[in-house]
């Protein structure tokens, strides 16, 4: 094959593949897109895979008071450190806003639940496995599942889903008769106690995201209550418990993020929901060349964000933690954005300056801001001269990526 023949083969291949690309469906922009335009953010990179991170200082400014009474912690006044994130015991478990993915498939929440049950129960839909959506919004959904026969319900539980990166995703599954207690990550160890009200044995595993059990984590045939105490790496894991040795179907799966790697603390403080830190890390496996920002809350890493090229279409700003009264937002913004201002419906405004990453000063910048929790608020992205470059509507449980 000479060069001209190869070029022609490439041309023919590309055109044929282009012609075979499915383009049907979604004849209109999905309705949720209109809301996403207002609240879109990206937490897209699986940075839980991080190995030891090289500390970098980028500095940060966080204002947690209204504009007329600001408290500023500027890069010059804050003392960067290379201490690891705090290691306090943190209760972990799925959060309908922040929970990580256990299983995903194409389609809406009902299709994903169906695919999930088929993946976990080999004989599905036998023996009499049913599911039903009991709650669904544009962003989160919850389904109940049950198995039984004419004599009644034998077992059941719930499946929690949320939309991650525009894809419906299972973030937690439970069985009513299997109980997970004292689940916590302490000093990079996962500890939990599993009990059951059933007679069957429990099988407990801690799996990586490819489904492989962590060494020493398989507690097959565990005597109940089954205690779990396994060291964690930097990758997220899934705690899975099943009843075995009987006929009852069960599935309990919980996604657990072990926390941020060691990194330079850019800024730290307290908010209503606890202590927070912003960390910077780089040279992290699977991150390519993207300088990365993390937010760590009481030692448990929350959804990280990574600076991309700084020429992205979107500013990424979204909630990383919330309690009943407050929401902490974190994100990356374009290089032209000097600060972000969040204005609540009652007119209160909260501002935070963005900061660049030292290894990519022309790239994305990072920003964090905590505000009282409201149904929706307006975020304005401001240039250095105060010009409003863009505005979006943000929601506490808005569209969250994966």
């Amino acid at each position: 094959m000479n060069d001209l023949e190869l070029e022609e083969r490439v041309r023919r291949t590309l055109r044929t593949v282009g012609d075979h690309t499915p383009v049907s469906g979604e004849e209109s922009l999905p309705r949720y897109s209109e809301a996403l335009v207002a609240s879109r953010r990206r937490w897209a990179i699986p940075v839980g895979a991080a190995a030891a991170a090289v500390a970098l200082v980028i500095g940060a400014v966080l204002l947690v008071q209204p504009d007329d009474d600001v408290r500023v912690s500027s890069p010059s006044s804050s003392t960067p450190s290379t201490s690891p994130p705090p290691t306090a015991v943190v209760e972990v478990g799925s959060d309908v806003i922040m929970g990580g993915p256990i299983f995903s498939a194409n389609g809406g929440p009902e299709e994903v639940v169906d695919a999930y049950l088929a993946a976990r129960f080999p004989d599905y839909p036998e023996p009499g496995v049913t599911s039903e959506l009991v709650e669904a919004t544009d962003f989160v959904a919850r389904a109940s599942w049950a198995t039984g026969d004419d004599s009644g319900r034998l077992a059941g539980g719930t499946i929690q889903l949320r939309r991650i990166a525009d894809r419906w995703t299972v973030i937690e599954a439970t069985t009513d008769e299997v109980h997970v207690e004292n689940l916590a990550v302490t000093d990079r160890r996962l500890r939990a106690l599993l009990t059951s009200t059933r007679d069957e044995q429990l099988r407990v595993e801690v799996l990586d995201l490819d489904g492989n059990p962590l060494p020493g984590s398989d507690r097959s045939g565990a005597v109940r209550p089954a205690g779990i105490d396994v060291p964690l790496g930097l990758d997220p894991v899934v705690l899975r418990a099943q009843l075995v040795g009987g006929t009852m179907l069960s599935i309990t799966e919980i996604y657990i993020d072990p926390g941020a790697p060691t990194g330079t603390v850019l800024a730290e403080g307290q908010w209503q929901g606890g202590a927070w830190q912003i960390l910077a890390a780089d040279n992290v496996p699977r991150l390519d060349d993207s300088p990365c920002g993390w937010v760590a809350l009481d030692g448990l890493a929350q959804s990280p964000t990574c600076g991309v090229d700084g020429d992205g279409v979107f500013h990424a700003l979204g909630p990383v933690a919330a309690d009943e009264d407050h929401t902490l937002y974190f994100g990356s913004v374009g290089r032209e954005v000097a600060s972000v201002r969040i204005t609540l419906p009652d007119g209160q405004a909260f501002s935070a300056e963005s900061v660049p990453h030292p290894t990519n000063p022309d790239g994305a910048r990072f920003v964090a801001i905590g505000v009282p929790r409201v149904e929706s608020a307006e975020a304005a992205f401001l240039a250095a001269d105060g010009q409003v470059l863009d505005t979006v509507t943000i929601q506490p449980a808005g569209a969250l990526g994966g």
Partner: protein
Amino acid sequence: MLPWTEVDAVYRRLRPDLLRLANLLTGSESMAEDVVHDAFLGFARHATTVDNPDGYLRTSVVNLSRTAHRRRGRAERLTPERVTTTSIPEVDETWAALRRLPERQRAALVLRFYEDLSFDAVGELLGCPAATARSLAHRGLARLKETLR
């Protein structure tokens, strides 16, 4: 912001071609859908200042495709890739080889041989000089030749 109905009209008109381009650039039908969707979200937010929606969206798709693998969420890691197949052995074999090329080499070939762009235009879209774009395409072809031998 442009009225949603107008954004939707642009979406209906351009989505098929952009999906094809994104599929060729990313090598994944599912990623292509995300890329095109994201491109339109960005367009919707900036539509009032966009003079040339076709060019803006094509550029967005190229840019977003370049970072699509990097931006892949954990959700996609758990979802089987959907890869286009044609049932034409020579095409499927060549497409598999193209998908294995480094991202920028594949992008250069797609923009050159599918979009029929000059190397000046390819370089502009990839953010590199025309000579680099030409080199990327040349190296991509050389690797393909080795693979398909």
